[in-house]
């Protein structure tokens, strides 16, 4: 029987990153992936003959440090990337377009006052982004942990806040918990601009513009990194990032096994307590290792793979009540040609359909009761413009994240329900790209439930759990498991369900590896 130092469950980007860091330090690492493809939600797959797409359709705040540490450029990932414009679509073609990065972004389609406010707003936020940035790649200490390094992390955060100055510090503590809507209303007049700017604080979560307490933090999280919140598609596509991570992993000696679904994590108990000894695959094969690192979501890890009999009751309850129902559906269209959006020369950008913040709010309202909106709001990209091999020559792929589509639909996600939603979404896109319906060769809509099944993410939630204050920082996914170690010796977490969270960022994988190597 093989013996490994570490077994990592799940070859999403965080699993790959964690594995590579460990292998580079000389560990024997086995990486197990349940599906046949690598990359998790970033995996590119053919959804129609000749047409490919990934659930995660752009890259935004992928950690530069991880790219550097793992030398991803050498493995074929072209960083830095060229940012795409963000476009707020207007049916009449009077779009709001943001180009460039962060503070320097140019903005057209709004009044001079709004453009000026934008710069001020962005500068303020940038200061907050920089305040928080170092902490995304730190292990957040446990409360009550009196070790010097932990106290230092808290002291550092406190000091950095103080260094913002009186004005900014006060503003930070107010803004951090503000609903996106208030932040926007305070700064801008253009309804479309407000909707576009609030989008990044809301997408992927069960929050709407009026929801307090988390969207600004999420926004600041997503603004970290070199792109300052802008999105890009590498020339080799998302595929190239996954490929580079895989290549870096194998180069450092990680053994990767696909189609290897883990049935349970093996836990041995004696009078010294419990200890992780390895994993058992779905086919019954047992593989031993000194430690097991799970990049799958916390609920699946603990409730299914570990089993509650090995956990404490209140801990189990905290894992059970994690909010991780997804609210985003994914639309993939195989198109006969380049779609033509009214008023846009070329659909090269991240296009947001949400005429104003109310549109987002009201779309959310339906989802609260287990329905979906007849006026869905969404983010669209045409990834084949940047990454040509996604579609046959001359043809294109349209990829959209559709908000707010509930994981649990009243009446269930039947074929009919899925088809009806798909039609509704296409109709909505057609308002802005009137000819698109004639171009559609094939359409595919993935509900959160589909994402759960195909990608083994509980609730189909991108982030393995809401990015809300009580599920962030030293509380992600819950205390006792927020420092990547868990109550069971030898079991670690390295997925999006850990600090700092989801998105193609790499923080959890990086931080977990550091913790394990300590």
């Amino acid at each position, binding site marked *: 029987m093989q013996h490994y130092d570490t077994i990592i469950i799940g070859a999403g980007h965080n699993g790959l990153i964690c594995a590579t860091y460990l292998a580079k330090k000389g560990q024997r690492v086995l990486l197990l992936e349940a599906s046949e493809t690598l990359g998790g939600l970033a995996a590119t797959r053919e959804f129609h003959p000749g047409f490919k797409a990934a659930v995660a359709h752009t890259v935004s705040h992928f950690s530069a440090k991880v790219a550097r540490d793992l030398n991803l450029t050498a493995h074929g990932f072209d960083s830095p990337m060229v940012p795409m414009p963000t476009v707020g679509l207007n049916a009449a073609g009077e779009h709001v377009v943001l180009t460039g990065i962060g503070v320097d972004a140019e903005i057209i389609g709004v009044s001079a006052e709004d453009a000026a406010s934008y710069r001020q707003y962005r500068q303020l936020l940038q200061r907050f982004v920089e305040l928080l940035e170092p902490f995304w790649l730190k292990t957040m200490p446990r409360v009550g942990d009196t070790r010097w390094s932990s106290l230092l992390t808290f002291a550092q955060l406190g000091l950095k806040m103080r260094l913002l100055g009186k004005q900014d510090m006060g503003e930070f503590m107010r803004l951090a918990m503000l609903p996106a809507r208030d932040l926007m209303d305070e700064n801008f007049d253009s309804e479309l601009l407000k909707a576009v700017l609030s989008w990044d604080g809301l997408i992927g979560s069960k929050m709407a513009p009026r929801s307090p307490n988390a969207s600004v933090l999420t926004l600041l999280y997503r603004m970290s990194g070199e792109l300052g919140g802008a999105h890009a598609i590498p020339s080799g596509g998302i595929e190239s990032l996954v490929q580079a991570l895989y290549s870096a992993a194998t180069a450092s000696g990680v053994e990767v096994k696909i189609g290897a679904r883990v049935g349970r994590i093996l836990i041995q108990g004696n009078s*010294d307590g419990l200890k992780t000894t390895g994993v058992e695959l779905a086919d019954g094969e047992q593989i031993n290792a000194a430690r097991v690192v799970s990049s799958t979501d916390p609920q699946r890890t603990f409730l299914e793979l570990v089993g509650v009999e090995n956990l*404490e009751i209140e801990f189990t309850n905290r894992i059970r009540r994690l909010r991780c129902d997804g609210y985003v559906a994914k639309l993939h269209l195989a198109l006969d040609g380049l779609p033509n959006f009214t008023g846009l020369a070329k659909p090269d950008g991240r296009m947001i359909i949400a005429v104003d913040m109310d549109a987002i709010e009201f779309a959310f309202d339906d989802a609260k009761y287990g329905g979906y909106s007849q006026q869905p709001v969404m983010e669209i990209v045409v990834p084949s413009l940047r990454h040509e091999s996604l579609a046959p020559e001359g043809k294109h792929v349209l990829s959209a994240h559709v908000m707010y589509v509930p994981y649990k639909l009243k009446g269930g996600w039947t074929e009919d329900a899925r088809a009806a939603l798909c039609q509704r979404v296409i109709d909505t896109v057609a308002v802005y790209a009137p000819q698109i319906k004639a171009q559609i060769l094939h359409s595919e809509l993935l509900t959160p439930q589909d994402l759960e099944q195909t990608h083994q993410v509980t609730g189909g939630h991108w982030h393995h759990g809401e990015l809300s204050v009580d599920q962030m920082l030293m509380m992600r996914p819950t205390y006792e498991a927020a420092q990547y170690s868990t109550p069971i010796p030898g079991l670690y977490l390295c997925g999006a369900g850990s600090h700092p969270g989801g998105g193609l960022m790499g923080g959890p994988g990086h931080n977990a590896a550091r913790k394990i190597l300590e």
Partner: protein
Amino acid sequence: MNTDNNAKVPAADPFADERLKRTHFYPRAAQLNIRDAWSAWNGYKFADYYYDAEYEYFCVRNGCATYDICPMQKYFISGADAETMLNRMVSRDITKLNLNRVTYLCWCTDAGRMVDDGTVFRLGADKFMLTCGSPSLAWLRKSAFGFNKLSIIDMSDEIAALSFQGPTSCEVLKQMGLEGIDSLKPFNIIHFPFGDSGGNRDDKPLMVSRTGFTGDLGYELWIKPELALDLWDALYAAGENYGIQPFGEAATNMARLEAGFIMPGMEFNEALKTIHFQHDHSPFELGLGWLVDFKKPHFNGRKALLKERDARPEYTLVKLDIEGNKPAEESHLYSDKRCNHEIGYVTSAMWSPVVKANIALAMVKTKYLQGDIWAEIYYVKELRHYSKTVRCTLQDKPFWAPARTRATPPLAY
């Protein structure tokens, strides 16, 4: 979920909802409650005493007496996962509990603080009954999450239970026709036919366990509500020549203190119902370390309890023999006679009529257990208030533990 007895309250009663529920034995118990001295337990009307608490107490020590434990919470936990689920919840090793055996145990939060204590009856390979003093359904459900082959049913209102205690209790049960009751060992369970089932030997609706809360020989009788009054009548008929008498909360409290048993709300707060930290308790503090089985690889609170065992708990519950005859109720304890240095407090105290001693249970800071312990006692004589400081002596053994409690068959009395 009104019980059948509730239906007997006239429908026109505008206060029907506000009245306390009546136990399955209420019609008989009410008749004997000469003083109408009722208190409440889990929403039930419940006798504090019937005529004279001390007399009732002496019936327990000298003859036999019944205590209506219908309000006690009873849960059936069954299914293939039942043993695993319970074993993870409680700190004792349930797998060692044999069929038709009962065990006293406690369960703790993740932090090793006591949620409650109670008893578990193994009624089958996959079937248990858990009884405890206060509602525990929410914690049980929480503990059950993740176990699929499991059912938890709250049987609190659906089982009539009568505790029957005292030195002649075995004799009375024999008189009642419970053959073989004398060979029932402590903490064992036996089932008997009762009522209409007389002819059918397989139908045994009466369950008897040799358990109790008085520190004396005693049994607990469990039966379906429809047979409750018949059981009462049969028992009282058999016990007529043995001075059978119901006893209430007051007498129970006396008996259990002599036996050194702890009482929720007196000796400990349930952790989930405690607002202030450190006002809850660990089993070690309560002297229940023997209920914690660290040989078990995993159970709730294990890590925290292990830590506490090694560090020793801040307080320890002790039994005190106190000078003089004034009960040390709510007394503060000191390490010096001048009461300068406080080291603990008394949780329950009384003058013990059988051992003729002034006894108490008390929480004392563990590090002061070796030294002197003084109690400052306040007492009243004809409305004039006095205080005095007296010496306390630690007791290892229960104040009252007669051999008959454990002997099988019980010694003749």
